[in-house]
């Protein structure tokens, strides 16, 4: 693959907030002592009067955001995904979601690629526990452009939105002109033997897997599904019907996350064999992102192996 510029999706988030704030003065940002690493510092520096540091007190921050939304503001709360989705979950559930409040949640440091900080700081469950909440929309952008579009979309939408960001730079693989429609998958590559459905910054691995499969004579369709909820049932049903096998890819527990969302759509529309690339019911650990991708089976090579396996299952059933 050609070398592409790499930018972390958290950087795109920080940039987006600054840009969008200029257009809409209702946007305010709340932080919990992680202003630098969530990149909300850029907003805080430009708009100090519209930024509130709540200290290491996530639960209070969430309900303060709920309050701000009730008086007409568009609050973005952000800290690490583990602490925002995890610690403040019930506040999100019963205040923000139950009353369908206009609170935007930016979960930073999603996934295993957080690296040396280890299990405590690697959010591997956030998508599952956000997805289960009524009224919540869950988006995991894959790269710089997709992040900027997702954040802009979320500001326009009225209601709770959870957007997850990564710590590590990832290649910019989408284009500024690519459409971003909430709830709609993007076809990255067409194919008819199998579908790879990707969610989030693992897109680069999925793209590489498509190339590797091509060399093996396997034609893989690649769907990039940025919105986990609501899931694009139509695109998934079509892929199931036309390719007969699906492999999902996510940097998250396979239980309850994106793969499960795709499976729910598949079994209710056009059941086909599936395999799930993601974290297999384990906690993360310290290491470099590369070492961890290898250990936890998230690389292109692992996707290719899963495709070969699912194709065996497909051929048995057909």
């Amino acid at each position, binding site marked *: 693959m050609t070398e592409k510029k790499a930018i972390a999706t958290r950087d795109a988030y920080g940039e987006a907030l600054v840009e969008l704030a200029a257009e809409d003065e209702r946007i305010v940002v709340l932080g919990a*002592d992680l202003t630098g690493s969530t990149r909300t510092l850029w907003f805080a520096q430009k708009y100090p009067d519209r930024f509130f540091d709540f*200290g*290491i007190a996530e639960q209070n921050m969430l309900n303060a955001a709920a309050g701000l939304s009730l008086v007409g503001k568009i609050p973005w709360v952000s800290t690490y995904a583990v602490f925002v989705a995890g610690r403040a979950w019930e506040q999100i559930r019963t205040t923000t979601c139950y009353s369908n409040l206009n609170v935007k949640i930016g979960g930073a440091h999603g996934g295993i690629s957080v690296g*040396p*900080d280890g299990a405590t700081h690697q959010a591997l469950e956030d998508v599952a526990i956000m997805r289960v909440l009524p009224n919540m929309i869950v988006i995991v952008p894959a790269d710089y452009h997709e992040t900027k579009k997702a954040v802009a979309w979320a500001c326009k939408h009225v209601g709770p939105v959870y957007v997850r960001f990564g710590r590590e730079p990832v290649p910019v693989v989408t284009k500024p002109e690519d459409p971003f429609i909430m709830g709609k998958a993007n076809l990255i590559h067409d194919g008819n033997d199998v579908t790879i459905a990707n969610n989030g910054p693992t897109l680069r691995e999925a793209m590489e897997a498509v190339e590797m499969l091509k060399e093996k004579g396997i034609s893989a369709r690649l769907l990039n599904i940025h919105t986990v909820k609501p899931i694009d049932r139509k695109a998934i049903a079509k892929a199931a019907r036309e390719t007969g096998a699906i492999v999902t890819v996510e940097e998250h527990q396979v239980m309850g996350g994106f793969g499960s969302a795709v499976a729910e759509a598949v079994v209710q529309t056009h059941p086909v064999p599936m395999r799930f690339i993601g974290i297999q019911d384990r906690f993360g650990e*310290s*290491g470099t992102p590369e070492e961890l991708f290898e250990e936890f089976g998230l690389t292109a090579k692992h996707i290719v192996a899963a495709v070969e396996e699912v194709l065996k299952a497909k051929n048995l059933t057909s």
Partner: protein
Amino acid sequence: MVDQAKLKELEKIAHRIRCDIIWTLAHAQSGHPGGSLSATDFGVALYFYAVKHDCKDCCWPERDRVVFSKGHASPLIFSLLAESGYIERDELKTFRQFGSRLQGHPNLECAGIEVGTGSLGQGLSIAVGMALGLRMDGKPNRVYCVMGDGENQEGSTWEAIMSAGHYKLDNLCAVLDSNRLQIDGWVEDVMGLQPIAEKWRAFRWHVIEIDGHDMAQCVEAFDQAKQVKGQPTVIIANTVKGKGVSWMEDVAEWHGKAPKPDRCRDALNELACPAEYFDF
């Protein structure tokens, strides 16, 4: 009163531990120096004076329990465990590396760790449970919990403080590393907590305030805490984040970033660490 020879010995250990912290970070090239160095002196008083434990048997039922609620101080925690003999000092070189027992934030894979921590605002509640359980069984063991001052912003911490006061847990001693800094800056600027001693007192705790870098005061505070009956004790240790390395002292930036190898050498030189620490 503890004798001068013992104090001198503890100060020597503290010096070694500071060298270990920098050395560990130099190898890992990632981790938290600031809050490790601020907690070093009382940490040494805790492990090598106050606490009853046995490095040969980390499950010894008669041991006191230590919960490091500020788990990000792992360079300090693992250095204390190495100095105590729970792990080999050489293993510190594997800190934060793939496959190491010495994870970014401590967990039960490492002998001498009582519980995995790293998510702030959880440790004191765990310590409350331990203290309640030990007291139920009529055990004399004490429970210690090391906390950050920024961590005091967590609501759950105040729930823990409230419950310990309510249950009069005099077998529980918290140490608050009052280095006045958190990640985003000064605690007072981010989310002010002063007057902090009054708050703990209002929640029915006995409060001891010390200079957390004065070994005699650290040792005496732990002694005094053991004498307090009918309420838990918090030692508010006034400290300097990054203590011992001039350019780290009171600088928020050194909270969670390892210095590059050259700067680690500068730090080791400033601390006058022996030659064997320069092997990276």
